[in-house]
């Protein structure tokens, strides 16, 4: 089955249309200008959006992801390194905060993206670098979150009763403690599972994650540590910085943005800055680890444990280090998360969360730092922005009683059915050719597709044109789009995996390995026993 048709196979070549453009973008100056124009374009769109506009959800959902994914575009461009850094800094510290001032929901989104990025990067160390499948990663996240929450929550826990609460200003210190405690947790998990491999490891880590969650649910009696399923609320936030509030007020007045709530905005901005810095720190550490002897030792373990031992890789130490490093990232992010939410309860640390983080790592491209980041961005945006806004948009259309005119219904139906037919015919081409041969007709692939498709498409077109217009109000309540976001997400996961099995942004080294293993066993569709 061909999953990746090249343009020449398609029969018509889109590539030729864009070739001059592509060549032009090879030129650093043009590329640089294009990127700046791109950035300004999306900024202008986002800052001009109005919530009164019934199309707001759609526009926001189309305009915000390109802005967030801008850094990846910059990294992929052929540009001078310093200029790239400048562009990325500009988008992170100027454009996104500005957009956030117009609409603080973007701040929240970016903070959540940072949180999941940190988690994905940490899990990537365990799963991607060292090849240890961990399905209970969220446990370490929980450890970090509960650490900060237990010491500052205003619920009557053992800590509060014994006067062990710490002031909000110790937040930064606790970020550090989060690292240490979670790392110890990582080693605790790592020790008993050293001999386990693959799925045996998966189930034990899954169990560990569940155990931590069950403990969090039940550690409210006889002594109240976690307040059980009621959760800990009133978790402290780091003290806000007055100059940040002032800065925000000043920027808003000079740009003419109505000041909505400068205090809460500066709180969010502070979290945003901390989150960006933490993720940056994690990226630096992960990169240095990857390119160090430790990273190579992990690769060796991942590829072949026995050979790694034979080559003198200290297996125990390296595995434990992988667990500890991955866990410590989750720990620091956990502290940040608890403080941002100001509420911690076991519901946030379910198995689904672990699986979600794993999905980010694999969707992005396992084993690569860029891939993990990209995966975290894409999955979080999908979940929290794109799918949400899509349902909101349909709801808006329902509310304003919008009607899809019959010509548009016809066009949409024609496009979808036509594309499916095209795919079917393409898949059936060999069969059709042999059929034609039996009828003593010799056609090549191109001809037979045209012969079969054109009459079919005409039939579809005639039928589509007779469809009535569609009123959004007729949308059945059982099929309210908000109810099926997870379904769509599931389909997208399958589609992404089928079309980009090595991830959306695969690591070049990994890609090479995959192609190699594919070409050596091209005849047999096995996975070659490769872990």
């Amino acid at each position, binding site marked *: 089955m061909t999953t990746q048709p090249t343009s020449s196979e398609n029969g018509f070549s889109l590539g030729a249309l864009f070739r001059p453009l592509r060549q032009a973008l090879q030129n650093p100056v043009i590329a640089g200008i294009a990127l700046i124009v791109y950035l300004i374009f999306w900024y202008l769109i986002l800052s001009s959006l109005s919530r009164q506009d019934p199309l707001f959800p759609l526009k926001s959902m189309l305009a915000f992801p390109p802005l967030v994914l801008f850094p990846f575009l910059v990294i992929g461009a052929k540009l001078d390194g310093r200029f790239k850094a400048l562009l990325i800094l500009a988008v992170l510290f100027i454009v996104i905060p500005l957009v956030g001032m117009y609409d603080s929901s973007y701040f929240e989104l970016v903070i959540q993206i940072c949180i999941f990025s940190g988690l994905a990067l940490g899990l990537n160390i365990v799963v991607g670098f060292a090849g240890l499948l961990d399905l209970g990663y969220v446990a370490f996240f929980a450890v970090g979150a509960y650490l900060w929450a237990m010491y500052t929550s205003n619920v009557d826990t053992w800590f509060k009763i014994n006067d062990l609460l710490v002031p909000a200003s110790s937040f930064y210190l606790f970020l550090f403690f989060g690292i240490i405690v979670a790392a110890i947790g990582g080693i605790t998990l790592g020790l008993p599972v050293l001999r386990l491999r693959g799925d045996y490891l998966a189930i034990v880590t*899954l169990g560990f994650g569940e155990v931590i969650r069950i403990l969090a649910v039940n550690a409210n009696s006889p002594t109240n540590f976690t307040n059980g399923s009621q959760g800990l609320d009133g978790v402290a936030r780091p003290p806000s910085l007055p100059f940040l509030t002032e800065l925000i007020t000043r920027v808003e007045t000079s740009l003419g943005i109505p000041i909505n709530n400068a205090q809460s905005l500066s709180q969010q901005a502070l979290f945003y800055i901390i989150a960006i810095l933490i993720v940056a720190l994690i990226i630096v550490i992960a990169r240095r680890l990857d390119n160090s002897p430790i990273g190579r030792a992990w690769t060796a373990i991942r590829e072949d444990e026995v050979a790694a031992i034979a080559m003198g890789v200290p297996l125990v130490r390296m595995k434990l280090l992988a667990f500890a490093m991955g866990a410590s990232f989750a720990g620091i992010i956990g502290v940040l998360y608890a403080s941002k939410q100001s509420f911690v309860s076991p519901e946030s640390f379910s198995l689904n969360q672990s699986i979600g983080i794993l999905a980010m790592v694999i969707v992005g491209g396992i084993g690569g730092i860029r891939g993990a980041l990209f995966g975290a961005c894409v999955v979080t945006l999908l979940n929290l922005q794109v799918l949400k806004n899509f349902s909101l948009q349909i709801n808006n259309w329902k509310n304003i009683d919008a009607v899809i005119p019959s010509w548009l219904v016809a066009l949409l139906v024609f496009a979808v059915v036509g594309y499916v037919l095209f795919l079917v015919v393409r898949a059936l081409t060999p069969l059709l050719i042999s059929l034609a041969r039996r009828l003593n007709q010799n056609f090549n692939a191109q001809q037979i597709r045209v012969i079969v498709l054109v009459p079919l498409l005409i039939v579809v077109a005639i039928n589509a044109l007779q469809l009535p217009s569609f009123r959004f109000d007729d949308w059945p309540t059982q099929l309210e789009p908000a109810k099926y976001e997870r379904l769509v997400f599931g389909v997208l996961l399958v589609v992404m995996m089928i079309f980009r*099995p090595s991830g959306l942004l695969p690591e070049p080294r990994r890609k090479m390995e995959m192609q190699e293993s594919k070409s050596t066993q091209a005849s047999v569709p096995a*996975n070659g026993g490769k872990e």
Partner: protein
Amino acid sequence: MVSVRSTTDWLYRYVVFPVGQMLIFIIGAGLVVSVLAYLLAFLFPEPRPNIILVDQINRQLPGMLIAGVSLGFVYAMIALGYTLVYGVLKFINFAHSEIFMFGSVIGFEVMRRLDDTGYMQGWNPILLVAFIVLWAMLLSGLLAVLIERIAYRPLRGAPRLVPLISAIGVSLFLTDAVRAFQAITRNEFNLTYPTIDLPWLKNPIPLAFGETTVNVRVTSIIIIVAAVLMLVAMNYFVNGTKLGKGIRAVSQDMSTASLMGINVNYMISLTFFVGGSFGGAAGALFGMNVGTVTPFVGFIPGIKAFTAAVLGGIGNVTGALLGGLALGMIESFLNGILVYFPALGQRYTDVFAFSVLILILIFRPSGLLGERVDEKV
């Protein structure tokens, strides 16, 4: 295949031996659990005021064992699906729990439709159960094949974790798709089996064990009998038929198998069909037992069965059976005993169950019956 010389030989190989094996597993697990229970009663005679542990255990041990066995068989049947797929494709089919759910929903649909005709009460009990279970098996098996065709086959040769994510996607899709289907067709979420119209199924059979009487539910007996029959059939299929041999060949070495003229894709589809139909049968039986299912019913049994498959040694068919029975028994035991210990309680059942799993895996890293993972040098 070893040629089978006589009928007695055949009977021994495909009936007496597997049934005996199951009996040994059941009796063994039951004995271990009983000994543990009385040991605890000896160590903590009165864990809570006015509670004499021995008396409590005397009262609930028979019920606990029966519950453990029937639960264990459900786990074992689901675990088979995980283990078979793992055997040939070496990945965890996370969507299997939804196939189980699908089977339970199909069981509901078939039974409800029968009930709507009004003639269900007149059906022969055995025929009725077989009819429902066979439908669930057929459709779940086909669903599993379809899933493999769409979501896994394009991913052969991709890194091992990629089909795992695809499976998670399928699982998310299936739960909500079934929910949408039921919402549109019936506008119902909790799907209740119309067992109320079947007195023979509804009324438990009182069984006396010394002084205590245990109400054994008919559905528990159905589960146990059906599971034993199916597992025997399964054993025959895998070890006694040509197709089963093909599956084993593929799971041992896919490339060599294909060189030997085995249609690998066909064998994989077949594996998914068999695994899926067992999951579906387990779903329908489970549904009859518990009475009400929902589109989200698959998650917990799915995870438990996966644990059971790993406990027994993933990829090993007998291991799935042993793992399922062992886990069902452990769970039933913990549920029954932990209640009496203040500061513990049933909420720690899963913690203890996982601790047992970890302990076993520390000493046997490839599960109870798993072989050492191949070490390529």
